[in-house]
């Protein structure tokens, strides 16, 4: 991580842009880090499996069945991943709409994370399509299935990726030293933010609405007409917990890029984030309780699915909520981190339950993902981390913006 991306603006102007890009494409820093040693072989296997998937059909690598047509890639990479990427819209709301400036230093990294997440989860979606070459039909064709929830989700996805790109683009402009573009792009931020939050509200709930027609297929403890609202509310604390978790990792990994000032600020930020988490989890639990009572679900509790439901709700929503609330009075970073990790597990459980585990829970043959599906799922995430790291080491995400771009922002 020694690449001095700054200040090279002057030098850059003498180079052609291509030579600059070529140079930047080379990896910087040490090669044989533990992360690389583990991730490279997995990625290679994953890529090979992806080739097999396209030459031999989905069934060659995936265990999905006629009854459970959506497997790990949809359930984990798309449905679960998008909940975690929700941090971007919550944070841009806090910073750009509510103007809580404290969080400015982590907006960029969160938006970058969101952008990459969406990009790669769209990738996962394409992998899962049986006929991906027809993907442009709902985009440009005259075949708009406007009554389809998936149609709406797809469109909101695509537009949101654009929105996130615009929100992040000033950092790219700073990296390339493109001053004029930087000015224009920065001016577009607030528009992109408003646009992005709206799109997020809809596709976060839309992912839940996808399952509305699977009424008899999802176990009644997880199915309700409230799924869209539950998905939306839980995306708030899912996203924020992910920010807390990722923050604690990147603080160590990219410590050379983070200055002292933002380090002390971080503690304050964690406290506020954990408060929002606690509150939104309370709302979520309350909604779950309402659904539980009005759906007269009591009779389902005394069964294995019922216990499983309690594990999710008590173990991974109620307990972390209490931990978050405990840390209100006496801020305790460790406690907050533990709560964040538990919340993350809870969200994974919830999304997998709705999309896979409680989906056709009564089927004779249960769907269990194959190792190949799992490797491909992990490969998608690993490549995403690689690109994330590549960008962090080059563009001003953690490190401050170059001076020419600064004065307006501060």
């Amino acid at each position, binding site marked *: 991580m020694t690449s001095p991306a700054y200040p090279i603006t002057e030098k850059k102007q003498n180079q052609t842009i291509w030579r600059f890009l070529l140079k930047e494409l080379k990896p910087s820093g040490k090669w044989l880090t533990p992360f690389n040693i583990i991730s490279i072989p997995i990625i290679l296997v994953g890529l090979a499996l992806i080739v097999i998937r396209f030459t031999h*059909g989905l069934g060659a690598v995936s265990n999905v069945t006629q*009854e459970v047509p959506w497997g790990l890639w949809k359930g984990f990479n798309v449905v679960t991943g998008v909940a975690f990427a929700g941090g971007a819209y919550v944070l841009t709301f806090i910073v750009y709409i509510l103007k809580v400036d404290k969080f400015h230093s982590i907006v960029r990294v969160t938006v970058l994370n969101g952008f990459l997440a969406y990009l790669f989860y769209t990738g996962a979606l394409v992998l899962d399509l049986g006929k991906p070459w027809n993907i442009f039909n709902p985009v440009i064709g005259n075949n708009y299935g406007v009554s389809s929830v998936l149609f709406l989700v797809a469109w909101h996805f695509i537009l949101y990726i654009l929105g996130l790109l615009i929100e992040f683009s000033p950092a790219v402009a700073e990296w390339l030293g493109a001053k004029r573009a930087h000015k224009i792009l920065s001016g577009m931020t607030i528009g992109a933010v408003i646009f992005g939050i709206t799109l997020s509200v809809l596709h976060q709930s839309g992912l839940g609405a996808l399952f509305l027609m699977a009424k008899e297929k999802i176990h009644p403890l997880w199915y309700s007409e409230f799924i869209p609202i539950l998905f939306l509310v839980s995306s708030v604390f899912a996203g924020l917990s992910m920010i807390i978790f990722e923050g604690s990792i990147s603080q160590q990994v990219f410590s050379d890029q983070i200055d002292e000032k933002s380090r002390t600020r971080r503690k304050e930020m964690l406290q506020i984030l954990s408060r929002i988490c606690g509150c939104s989890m309370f709302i979520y639990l309350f909604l779950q309780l309402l659904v539980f009572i009005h759906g007269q679900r009591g009779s389902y509790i005394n069964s294995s699915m019922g216990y499983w439901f309690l594990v999710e709700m008590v173990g991974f929503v109620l307990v972390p909520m209490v931990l978050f609330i405990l840390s209100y009075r006496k801020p305790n970073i460790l406690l907050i981190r533990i709560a964040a990790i538990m919340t993350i597990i809870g969200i994974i459980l919830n999304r997998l339950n709705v999309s896979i585990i409680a989906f056709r829970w009564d089927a004779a043959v249960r769907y269990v993902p194959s190792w190949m599906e799992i490797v491909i799922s992990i490969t998608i995430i690993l490549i995403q981390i690689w690109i994330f790291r590549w960008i962090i080491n080059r563009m001003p995400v953690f490190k401050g913006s170059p001076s020419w771009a600064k004065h307006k922002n501060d």
Partner: protein
Amino acid sequence: MSINRRDFFKALGATGMTIIGLNAAGSPGSNSDDDTEFYGILYDSSICIGCRACEKACAETHGLPEPEDEMEAGVQRKTSVTQRCTVNAFDTEEGEVYVRNQCMHCNEPACATACLTQAMYKTKEGPVIWREEKCMGCRYCMVSCPFDVPKFEYESANPIIQKCDMCYDRIKEGELPVCVETCGDALYFGTRRELIAEARRRIAEWPEMYIDSIYGEHTVGGTGYLYLSPVPHNELGFDIKLQKESYPSLTKSFLYSVPAVDVLVPSLLLGLHAATKNKQNKTENHD
């Protein structure tokens, strides 16, 4: 509670529609008024002798391998990527009863509503068809169909979705679906209105042969396939828990609220943004 929420969504939806100036466009419910003129097929379990001639004729017509698996009472043979229809046997107090199993050609099909490319499509004649050149293979239709009808070719690099299309090409030519043509009396083709009248007539004329209920008349908002049977439907593997309202109605309130949210949320955000901006300026001035 749920009523309240539904009303809330309805109100939201109504706002959305007025704002956008749409009138529930694209909602499959909009054609439910003239559903009586959809063609359909009446299947009579009391007459069917379980000869499976329709299965063979179907396979032949659609270029599928001849079904070879044996029929066994109590064993549900499901449709598959190579079988658009199956006939199953059930042991009941009326003896062995047969039931045909294929796409129900719902009046308001969940699959067609789910499909984001209109590859699954409810034709104006009534059959629900699948159009290969539009399908992107997302399998959302399979997730949504309450009868698990669409079957996906997982083993192919260029997969298709297999499902009964009521021989749509033949119907357009004025011919009968091949199963109806093959079968003597157990399958009866006509408009839904005719089929229901015919079913009622049979029930009235031979009450000892039928239970007084037509499966498909109301289930999931009405289906193009209608079933007469000598014993209660749940004894024949029918899912009688399925709701009476159509499946697309489950997503309608969400879909209707989308335009409203798309307009209201940005306005709200803009307002907030303006408000906080003023506040910021003020505090700055005081400093």
